[in-house]
């Protein structure tokens, strides 16, 4: 370590420097100024230590200083920490790209902010909201990093719980819809069918205007029940997969709204049922929005299998909207939640007069896993 700076550890020398100033600096006005500045520095450091988890490392990441709060939360003593690097609290939660980005930011002299999960000595995990400030030398090269952290474990846990509740809720809803749909189709639908057969056989024995009318009404009821079952959740989605399900949905949509939809798809294999449901519901939501608000006569849906991700795009060149004024935006919210539930991402690009593009990306990890599950 060739370059050593006088204040390796934050304000370490303030206390010893202060009494020496009397002798060293004859100019009393300047001296007072200096004294006050130094005192202030020490006070700020005290306040920081009281409020936050603080660590200082050299430019290689070796820990030079930790405050009591750091020791307390990590469960390590100061002696165990100093001289180590931050890998000691690494929870292997964050991937290499994450760490690379962090180091690229701070080593170029910029401040990094983010949330990190760390591992304490006893094996428990804690989340810290982290700000890393590089201290740079005259040439702009960082010689030291100051990391200020606040614990946000509870926040993160609540966040995760909320997310999992949300996912569960959507799964339960989907499961219920599937059940109702099946019951309608196979239960009431079948009963109506046999009723129709009975009426038909009675009709074959002798014409009767009233009976004929009854037959027609039963036929109509059958169509209604089938339609209801389809709307709840199309059985095609479970039986044949997303592509035939979407084709039928788009067909119905075109006829209902009088909007032409071009459907383009190059999916080779079936994604997981969860991913299929997500795609179906997102397309449904996005198209319904287009039908209701976009004031267009055309729209397009594209499904692409791009190696390890599936990309779904729903486009229209219509009125567009402003996110801020998109009303309660229940639809937008549920699309985002659905995407998150399968670790996908959704991007909604729209502005007034510019049309709307909904872009959903689902990682194919889901895909392969699902295929394996299906084979097992």
């Amino acid at each position, binding site marked *: 370590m060739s370059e050593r700076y006088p204040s390796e550890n934050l304000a370490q020398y303030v206390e010893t420097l202060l009494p020496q100033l009397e002798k060293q600096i004859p100019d009393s006005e300047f001296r007072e100024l200096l004294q006050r500045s130094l005192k202030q520095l020490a006070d700020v450091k005290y306040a920081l230590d009281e409020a936050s988890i603080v660590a200082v490392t050299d430019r290689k990441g070796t820990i030079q200083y930790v405050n009591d709060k750091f020791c307390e939360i990590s469960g390590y003593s100061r002696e165990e920490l100093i001289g180590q690097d931050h890998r000691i609290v690494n929870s292997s939660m964050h991937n290499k790209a994450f760490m690379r980005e962090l180091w690229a930011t701070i080593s170029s002299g910029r401040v990094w902010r983010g949330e990190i999960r760390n591992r304490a000595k006893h094996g428990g995990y804690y989340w810290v909201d982290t700000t890393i400030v590089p201290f740079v030398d005259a040439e702009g090269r960082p010689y030291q990093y100051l990391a200020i952290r606040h614990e946000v474990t509870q926040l993160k846990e609540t966040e995760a719980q909320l997310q999992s509740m949300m996912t569960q809720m959507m799964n339960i809803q989907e499961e219920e819809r599937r059940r109702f749909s099946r019951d309608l189709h196979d239960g009431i639908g079948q009963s109506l069918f046999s009723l129709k057969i009975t009426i038909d056989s009675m009709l074959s024995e002798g014409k009767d205007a009233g009976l004929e009318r009854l037959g027609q009404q039963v036929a*109509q009821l059958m*169509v*209604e029940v089938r*339609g209801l079952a389809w709307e709840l959740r199309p059985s095609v989605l479970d039986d044949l997969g997303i592509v035939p399900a979407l084709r039928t949905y788009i067909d119905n949509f075109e*006829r209902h*709204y*009088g909007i032409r939809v071009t459907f383009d798809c190059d999916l080779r294999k079936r994604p997981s049922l969860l991913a299929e449901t997500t795609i179906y519901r997102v397309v449904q939501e996005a198209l*319904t929005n287009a*039908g*209701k608000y976009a004031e267009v006569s055309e729209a397009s849906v594209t499904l692409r299998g791009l190696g390890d991700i599936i990309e779904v795009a729903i486009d229209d060149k219509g009125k567009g909207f402003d996110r801020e004024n998109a009303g309660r935006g229940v639809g937008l919210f549920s699309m985002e939640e659905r995407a998150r539930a399968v670790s996908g991402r959704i991007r909604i690009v729209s502005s007034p007069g510019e049309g709307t593009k909904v872009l959903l990306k689902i990682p194919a990890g889901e895909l392969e896993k699902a295929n394996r599950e299906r084979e097992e």
Partner: protein
Amino acid sequence: MTMNNGAQEALDGLRTEIGCDFCALAVWSGESRVLKWKLASGNGNGKFAGIAEREQSGLSQTVVKVGRAMSLQLAELLASRRIHEYPILLAEGLRSAYAVPILADRKVVGVLLAGDRKRRIYRAEERNSLLIAADALASRLTDRPEQSTTP
């Protein structure tokens, strides 16, 4: 299918008579159980011609099924989350509409709709005009298509 045996003129005339923005005629096909918009007056685009309403919802479930006139207000449909069941309102950006059944032989064969792009309450005499027009259109809907099927 051509059906312009004075029906278009009837729609245009009706629009002037009650002073509404939009008038349209839909035919209910009992066989395929679909309500299709055939003619319009004052339309802002051609979308109406592509709309085929199925019987589970909207006008098919109300005007067609019950055979009674119905008043539609955008605000109410939005509040009850049923606006998607009325694609003709969406296609033309209507805020208010009044729909009456076209009856032939006590069966519903179509729907006549008058609509406005602003909020409007249709008065009794306006609603009556629509019923009379629907009656006049009924004969056109039932007589003509059978004739036109023969080459």
